[in-house]
């Protein structure tokens, strides 16, 4: 029987890791990821997992150790946030190109500078092209579920691609709420035993990992990574369906909220989507046909699903919790691009919100809907919610 616990998002993720029981975890603590590592270190100390915990001296070392361990054939995890991820950056790409199915929760936090410990999505966006699967969670329950889902997905033979599970710093990681934890055995059976096909430690079948790869094959290897992500896109519905069987919780590329007849649609990721759903309910009570789309999957980007969900709507407002200086905001540019082939293109507008943990209130989230309803959207203007000007 699943157990409902009132715990933080960090504890929920640590429980998922405990149930996955990785062979190796190498991690370096950074706010607001720290409690994940603390809780998990406790599980290691208590002997409830079989994991070898490697306390490294930096995130660059953490990701390096994780790459070595995964290449050796171990099921391997780590976790980080913001500047920790930035320090890992070099090896983040290498993990993907070596096709190592590492799972890494990212507790989303603003990248410095100015230095800030609170939540935004600049860290997730910074590694959007690194070749990792990127799953996005609205709350602690989703962070728990997606950590388990990510493990199953990353390790599929046709995928073999590392995966990040994003949860909002403090709001999700340090917030307490009820989370349903599956039975240990159920999770164990779901993720199964990791049987690496090409482990470095298999000395009878020697292979080469990470050699110099110049103009002869670098290109082909990247083309294969693209195939891994395409296969992840194909495998996701199957993995989601399998997870629904054990949990009763249904996941998809996109979380569609009150979208059946929606005319005005907000697109937003992670915890702000929760508050936005409340705003959609408020608008619905006034008879306004509002709806919301929250991507559970950011990479591989569900372009086709966005097109299907948005074609023919009156207006779409896309919210980004980070900027892309000198360019359109990341989620906005992707959604806008997905609408290139729309038969009836909706009006569209870009809103940046919540940088550095700036609070996201219902009143703030009403503004894009109001501007959409007044027909005041401008596809070429980036607007800011809650900015002091």
């Amino acid at each position, binding site marked *: 029987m699943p157990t409902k616990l*009132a715990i933080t998002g960090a504890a929920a993720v640590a429980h998922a890791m405990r149930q996955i029981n990785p062979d190796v975890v190498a991690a370096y603590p950074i706010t607001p990821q720290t409690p994940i590592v603390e809780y998990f270190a406790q599980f290691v100390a208590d002997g409830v997992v079989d994991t070898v915990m490697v306390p490294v001296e930096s995130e660059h070392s953490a990701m390096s150790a994780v790459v070595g361990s995964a290449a050796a054939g171990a099921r391997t995890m780590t976790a980080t946030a913001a500047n920790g991820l930035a320090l890992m950056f070099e090896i983040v790409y290498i993990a993907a190109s070596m096709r190592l199915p590492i799972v890494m929760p990212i507790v989303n936090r603003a990248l410095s500078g100015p230095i800030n*410990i609170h939540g935004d999505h600049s860290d997730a966006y910074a590694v959007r092209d690194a070749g990792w699967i990127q799953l996005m969670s609205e709350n602690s329950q989703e962070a728990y579920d997606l950590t388990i889902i990510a493990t199953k997905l990353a390790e599929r033979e046709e995928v073999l691609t590392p995966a990040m599970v994003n949860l909002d710093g403090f709001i999700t990681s340090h*917030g*307490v*709420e*009820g989370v349903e934890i599956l039975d240990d055995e159920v999770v164990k059976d779901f993720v199964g035993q990791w049987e690496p096909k090409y482990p470095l430690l298999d000395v009878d079948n020697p292979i080469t990992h990470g050699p110099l790869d110049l103009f002869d094959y670098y290109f082909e290897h990247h083309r294969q990574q693209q195939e891994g992500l395409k296969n992840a896109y194909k495998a996701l519905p199957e993995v989601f369906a399998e997870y629904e069987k054990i949990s009763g919780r249904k996941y998809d590329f996109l979380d569609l909220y009150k979208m059946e007849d929606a005319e005005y649609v907000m697109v937003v990721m992670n915890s702000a989507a929760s*508050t936005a*759903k*409340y705003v959609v309910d408020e608008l619905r009570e006034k008879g306004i046909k509002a709806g919301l789309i929250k991507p559970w999957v950011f990479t591989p980007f569900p372009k086709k699903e966005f097109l299907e969900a948005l074609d023919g709507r009156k207006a779409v407002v896309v919210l980004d919790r980070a900027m892309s200086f000198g360019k359109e905001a990341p989620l906005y540019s992707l959604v806008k691009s997905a609408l290139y082939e729309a038969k009836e293109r909706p009006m569209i507008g870009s809103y940046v919100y919540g940088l550095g943990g700036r*609070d996201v209130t219902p009143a703030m989230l009403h503004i894009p809907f109001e501007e959409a309803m007044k027909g005041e959207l401008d596809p070429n203007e980036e607007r800011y919610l809650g900015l002091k000007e």
Partner: protein
Amino acid sequence: MPEKYFEIRWHGRAGQGAKSASQFLTEAAVEAGKYSTAFPEYGAERSGAPMKAFNRIADVPIRIRSGIENPDVVVIFDDTMLGLPELTAGLSEDKIMLVNTVMSPEKVREKTGFKGKIYTIPATDIALEEIKRGIPNTVMIGALVKLTNVVPLEVVKEKVKKTFEKKFGPEIVEANIRAVERGYQEVKGDA
């Protein structure tokens, strides 16, 4: 309108336990079959700096994730903070203020200018008597339950037992249960 949530805003100084108290309340609310969230507002973490924590409690899943601007109850852990404008910000006159202090509710009214219901409890003193440490959490929760009934008293006591017996002996568990009960019984208002 969508469902309203019952909203509590805690004010204290970092290190006094307001965050733990808000977490404890959510744990008890979930235990009682309700939906609840608890989250702190962190600045740079400096012991002694003013901090806030929030609770939402409802019979439906809680969607709003932002800080609480219009609380149903404000709970103040430290009476040296009385007079700070953020304590009464967004707190309307039909709502409640609960303060850990030896001062009278009238005195609190004078210091805060709040016109709604004010309740006081000398929670630190009671904690010193019962638990032998000046940790006002459990007393404050007892008082809060008396005023709002957000979570049944019995569930809170059961939760105290479960939480404390993991780490402490029966004496500490009993002392904390007495602390909850005294908070419940001894909280007083000026109305």
